[in-house]
């Protein structure tokens, strides 16, 4: 077991963790933040996307111990005091989610995109969410929601 | 996956035959053998660790000699388990005299069963090819050593 300390959605976390445990399982099973999802076992689907030190990463391709000393943001951190962010609101308004399973990862990738590129083109949006698989929407309304959020 | 080839080995046929039919010498041919047990003259078992840059791939291999016609033909079966995959390989080789040297014609039918996971097909075939080349190179070396005595 190794001690990890990091900042999770603005709060300090300190835990013992088995070095083999992936960050996604640590977040879900040990820290009980279940908004971050698992959709594959090969790092392809992006449902587990979180931000580590401001960068979008797949939390299934990172050991929990590698998060030591970092700042981690998950979907639970997007809504300040329960108030949905403009991006979250845009996802709802544009019907950019159906089952909602890919949504947390998609929102984290989109958050990362908009922080670094506040006025993305459609192509840039698509490139920005290429690492996130959605099986419900064909991405049509997701792209529209991100465009809409960028306009605001 | 069927592989085949011909290789000329610089040694008399009897020498080559001896190398190919000695389980201990065979063990030397294979990459990453950690342990090798001869159960009887037709069955052997080996634990191998195929060295890959990303970390070793461990397999447990069982060999069975299926057929032999000294000094020209032999057929072996190998079955490996581990890494969530099963490897089965049937290899046969024909030895013929080519002057001082020996010509070896070999065939291998390699089957890999099981969820090979993210490694996938795209890399397995090159890995198998690569291991076969390693075995042939090692065979060359063994034969040379046998010649030198």
């Amino acid at each position, binding site marked *: 077991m190794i001690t990890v300390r990091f900042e999770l959605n603005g709060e300090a976390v300190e835990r013992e963790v088995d070095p083999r445990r992936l960050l996604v399982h640590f977040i879900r099973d040990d820290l009980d933040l279940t908004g971050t999802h698992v959709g594959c076992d*090969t790092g392809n689907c992006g449902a587990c996307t979180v931000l580590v030190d401001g960068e979008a990463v797949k939390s299934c391709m990172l050991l929990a111990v590698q998060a030591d000393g970092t700042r981690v943001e998950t*979907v639970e951190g997007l809504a300040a005091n329960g108030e949905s962010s403009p991006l979250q609101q845009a996802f709802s308004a544009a019907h950019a989610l159906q*089952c909602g399973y890919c949504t947390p990862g998609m929102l984290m990738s989109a958050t990362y995109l908009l922080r670094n590129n506040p006025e993305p083109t459609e192509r840039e949006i698509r490139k920005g969410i290429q690492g996130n*698989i959605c099986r419900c929407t064909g991405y049509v309304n997701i792209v529209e929601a991100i465009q809409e959020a960028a306009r605001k | 996956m069927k592989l085949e080839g011909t290789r000329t080995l610089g040694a008399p046929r009897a020498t080559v035959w001896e190398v190919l039919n000695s389980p201990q010498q065979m063990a030397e041919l294979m990459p990453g053998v950690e342990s090798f047990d001869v159960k009887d003259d037709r069955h052997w078992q080996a634990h191998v660790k195929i060295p890959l840059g990303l970390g070793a791939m461990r397999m447990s291999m069982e060999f069975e000699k299926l057929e032999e016609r000294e000094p020209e033909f032999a057929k072996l079966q190998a079955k490996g388990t581990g890494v969530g995959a099963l490897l089965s390989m049937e290899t046969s080789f024909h030895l013929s005299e080519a002057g001082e040297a020996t010509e070896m014609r070999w065939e291998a039918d390699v089957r890999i069963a099981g*969820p090979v996971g993210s490694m996938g097909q795209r890399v397995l075939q090159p890995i198998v090819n690569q291991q076969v080349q390693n075995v042939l190179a090692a065979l060359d070396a063994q034969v040379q050593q046998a010649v030198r005595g």
Partner: protein
Amino acid sequence: MTQTTMEPLVVEREQTKPGFVGQSIPRKEDRRLTQGQGVFFDDLKRQGMGFIHFVRSPYAHAKIRSIDVSKALALEGVYGTLTGDEVAIQTDPFFELSTPPGSEIKDYALAVGKVRFQGEPVAAVAAATRELARDAAELVEVDYEPLETVVEPDAALAEGAPILHDDAGSNVVWSGVFDWGDWEAAKAEADHVLTIDYLHFDRFSSTPLEMSGCLVEYERATGQWTLYCNLQMPGVGAIWMAPAMRVGIDKLRFVTHDIGGGFGNKICLHPYFVACCLLARKLNRPVQWTEWRTDQHMANSHGNERVFREVEVAVKADGTLLGFSCKAIDDCGAFPRYEPLGAIIWSQVTPGLYRWRNIRVDFTQVCTNKSPVGPNRGYSRLQHLWLTERIIDLVAHELGFDPVEIRKRNYVKSDEMPYETPNGCVYDSGDYARCLDQALELVGYDKIEERRRDAEARGKLLGVGIGSTLDSGTNNFGQSTLINPELQFSGNNEVATVKLDIFGEIVVTLGTVPQGQGHETTASQVVADILGVTPEDVHVRPGHDSFWNSHAGFSGTYASQFAVTGLGAVKGATENLAWEIKRVAAGVFGAAPEDIELEGGQARLAANPEAAIPFMGIGAIVNANNAILPLDVRDVTLNCRYVYVPPFQLPDKERKFGNLTLTYATQIHVCVLEVDRETGAYELVDWAVVDDCGTRIHPQIVEGQVHGAWAHGVGAATSETFAYDEDGNLLTANFYDYHVPHALDLPPVKSGWIESPSPFTPFGSKGMGEGGGGAIHAVCAAIQDALRPAGKPVVYDSHNPYHRVWELMTRPEESRKLISVESR
């Protein structure tokens, strides 16, 4: 209107005032799902819970000589194991739907004595953590004796083929001939007979992003199992599981909340769930199982793979289609499970969108050493619709007809609706030609030749393709008796319960099991309109719970039916509640219920709106203050359960004839793509889809379903396939090789709609989630069109990755061998 042999189904619809139905209101589900507060089964935890990992067969076909779990049990943190031997003692084989030989197949929760596909579970291990469970699973030693493998359906039927199920004695599950009209006469009357030797509909699935699984609690005192899970059809799951487990059906409580996509792939989970239940009982602790992606690809339901042979088509000189005949060989993988229902379900759309009256299909379903199939978005109809579309396009291609004109000539016309098909199904409404025109306009079809020339200048071959499909919704389960006359299934049902609580809250309980279709939202629209409140005033419970007693035998979310059955039940229950509220208010005011109107959360006298009781008052009176009620109103419960039963009759088993579904939505796709002449790689450059699902309850949700069905179709046509090698190894066991389209792979899509209200349903709406696979054919047709200059190859497969396109364009003569025309 054509003559129909069925009794009229037409529903009288009263004029309703404009309300929430028809509006795209914000979805109730979205807040929790966008904030990471959704409740998916894997989010749940219990004290002392064991994690299950299945030991799966690496072989596609092998005898199990022995299983040794001792090393696994010796590992610290392992709670226990389960093997096929235990399963065979503690359970009976699952009920089979088929007649012999398929009925003789023995299907258990774990492999018993033999494995029949790669990934088949042979043992299960439960341990304290997910990691330990997998460690322990690796320590289970299984001694296999490999057997000869059969992966191709033709090979499975051949003399001397390895037999999967010795009990059945054959690889055939079911076979039968469907013969409607007079095919021989049609053939004799034809000016051209087109023959296609081989068409192949490929194997894929919708691969929902959330894996299957459950958390099971067992209560010793009562023998009660509770399964927190994502089973999308619990009613049928219980019918499979309870008898096999030798318990009453109420001993299995299914609870679902949010589900991360289902698409039919979460219907056949019963073998896994039984294993989990047995372990929960054996270990006396909660257990949970979450499938892994690789497991899902290897061993969860695949879509049905189907080969069509000896396809013959009778065509008149003017392009009128008279009929077709073919052999269909459906490959259901190692176990039938939901099958052989697929052997009949295609016949809901027997003629596709076309007016041909003479159709003969010789259908055989066969087992192979591949993953079992199960319903998959467009289940069994998309294979057949693809066939009808392939026929139309190949007739046009070979005989020189325009693909648009030949469709319009042969489409069922809007003024022929309701239209009875040759096998007695009734197409309720629609205007296919108008949908096609609109789709063509959206891609600028009149300018297509210019674009073709432009592409050519860039070294690309441009192609345009049409896929026109039907989405048949609301099954008549009586169709199962056309497969097996002994089965006691017919009709359909769905339940909703609407209550007014003591403090005036309106609570809706559905029988359905939503997986993203927005049922909470659309149900609230219906309720709000009837009760005179807003959707925010209506609480719809998320998910499903058997203990709510708000479900029936066919409850679930599948087969494009919620807008009809689910909302039909909601409407019925709400109307009953409204009547009870009016009776209570009338009792208080000494008026007649007819004098009461519901508005703004109040029941009031229509003639004197000042005289009003808020719903809170009504709830309080009935629940806590009922002594003030007149005696004749005291039967009121304000808790109204309603079962919607569509107006079906038993089909005619002899003729395999009858109305098999209530509604038929339409989806028409036009695809434009460009093929790289040098590589066979192609890019989708434009796409239009026009949908007609009758009255739309929530247009945005409808459009979302259209987008989703489109994306699944594109994936299946281009890069999603479950491919096996000759030894039965799955070659696409993960998202590397099974490539699901991502945002860069899909072009922006232009979608349009028309509304042809169904005369048979409560709102004029039609079920529409599945889409019929129109996108798959649109890609095939566009490739065929694009490759015309490359020797007119025949697109014979539903799945066309780059390498196949390359083969088609470099060796057109190979595929052209598959087709011939006899003209008289």
